């Protein structure tokens, strides 16, 4: 009976992937600036820590937030896909120090930060303060460019090969934000 119950649960969770019930996490604020010929990106997200994710952190698990930042060149022909000219992957991590009762955040800016509030930890893990995306020189005048950002939140992970199919069965613990697109004025002075 347990086997059957587990199987039914598995099927339900599996098909939950088709409905964006758990996809409330979004990248809310994005800011782009040009300083000394380099395009910088600032962003912050919200709803990264769902109830399930919080439970994992408090239970001593590690939560990994992976930001994918792409700089894309818009294709001149409608059907053709846009070309990726630069990709960055930024990983932030949160764990809970049981002995000191503190949340430990590992981010790209500071190697290790400690805080006692989970909200503060969420804020720090879901924001990028100032990240150099691409040099202005790499963009050409005649083309259109845009930056797109997406964050992946992984709180339960297993080692491959089981890990590959595992993620599909854990939409409550592993999910992502939709792509957020920010157009650039293609290299104009």
């Amino acid at each position, binding site marked *: 009976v347990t086997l059957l119950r*587990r*199987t039914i649960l598995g099927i339900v969770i599996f098909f939950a*992937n088709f409905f964006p019930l758990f996809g409330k996490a979004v990248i809310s604020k994005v800011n782009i600036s040009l300083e000394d010929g380099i395009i910088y990106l600032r962003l912050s997200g919200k709803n990264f820590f769902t109830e399930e994710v919080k439970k994992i952190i408090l239970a001593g698990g590690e939560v990994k937030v992976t930001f994918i930042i792409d700089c894309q060149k818009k294709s001149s022909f409608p059907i053709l896909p846009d070309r990726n000219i630069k990709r960055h992957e930024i990983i932030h991590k949160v764990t809970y120090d049981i002995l000191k009762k503190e949340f430990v955040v590992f981010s790209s800016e500071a190697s290790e930060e400690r805080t006692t509030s989970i909200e503060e930890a969420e804020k720090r893990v879901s924001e990028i303060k100032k990240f150099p995306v691409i040099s202005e020189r790499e963009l050409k005048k005649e083309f259109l460019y845009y930056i797109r950002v997406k964050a992946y939140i992984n709180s339960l992970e297993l080692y491959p090969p089981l890990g590959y199919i595992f993620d599909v069965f854990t939409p409550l613990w592993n999910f992502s934000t939709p792509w957020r697109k920010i157009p650039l004025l293609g290299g104009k002075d």
Partner: protein
Amino acid sequence: LKKKLLPFVGIGIILLGIIALVVFQLRSQLPHRILPTAGMLFLFYTISFISICLFISVIINLIKLISERKRAVIGSAFKTRLTLALSLVPLFSVLLLLLLSLFGLSESFKLLNTLPLTKIIQDILVLVEEISESETSSEKLSFTAERLQETFREFRKIELATQPMKVILSLTFILTSLLILNSALWFGFRLAESIARPMEKLLRGLEKVFEGNLNYRINFPTKTEFSHLITAFNQMTARLQQSRQELARAQKIAAWREVAQRVAHEIKNTLTPLKLSAEHLLRKLGGTPSYPYIQNIINQIKGLENLLSGFSQFAQMPKLNCRKCSLNQILKEIKTVYSSADKNIEINLDLDPALPPCSVDPILIRQAFTNLINNSLTALEGSPEGRILLKTSFDSQHLKVEILDNGRGIAPEIKDKLFTPYFSTTKKGLGLGLAITNQIITAHGGKLELFSKINQGTKVVLTFPKMKDER
């Protein structure tokens, strides 16, 4: 071509559907994990799909079998038992195997829970040991505590993942089991069907024959031993049909003979006084203007007598006066007679020089051959390049004479009527030739067979039994 392409189109649509599902499901995957996860998902969906298809097929087959059993269709009882035998045995063995692997699965779950725990206990033991040695510096102690926390985190990670992993393992187990079970069942059904099908065909064929339909033939190509059985059945029905036709022909001829005998007798009785009276009148009225009319009456009576003699000959088969003769010699003589008759028609001989002599009545056989050649000549009338071939051959049991022509042939619908007395395709023929010929050949213990194709020609095959001392 459309039928051949249909499965490929179906498979293509299903593959596209599966790919669409996979793509849809991969939205929350990290870019570097997409491909392996997609592969796993594809496998998962394909296995599920095959399993579902097999399951549906098994259910359909089951319903079909039950309905056949209810309607008491021929061979359904046999098929049911065969299906049970062929699907239940693998089913039980597979179930046993699955039970064993279920036991293994639960054991691995237990192992999953205990493995990291031992590691933590080890670390705690080290920590306790270090605390007991009070001399140790606090720096070393905090390092050990840090390491213990790291191990604990690792353990929590595995522990937290255990529940969903159990769900996945259960799901995978159920899916694989269903695939194996359905495959076993489907294979059993399929095998039972392949064995029962020829048996069913054979039983149906027997029923048809029992109902009196001798035209029924089983057309079922199979590579098993059933093919011999089916061939034997088809040959048996063909022979049965042939002998039935021969019997019908013989009965018809016997009936006609009876009629012919009576009619000939009755007419002859009336004709004799009529002819005598007419001759008497002819003598009396010789030289008068009525003379040609009476002469005409006598001529007509003579014609009638000719007709009657044909009838009598058909009715009364003269006694056979058999002696050892060479069929080759008879055919050669006939050829010489006919060669001078018609210059347009070429008669050729293809005689086997080693043909053994045969015990026949030479006069009657010559008449039979002549009748057949006359028929061929009639069929060749008006054709510019008429050819007749007389051929002899033999085997261990029989002597064979073939008369072939390239005439207009015989329509299939009148082929059976040809042996009926008084049936003729020409206006001048009496329609007794083939009937008498058949009678002569049958009286010699032989067989007459006709093969013909419209506008291509006719082949008459006469088979005579070989003389006993020649065998």
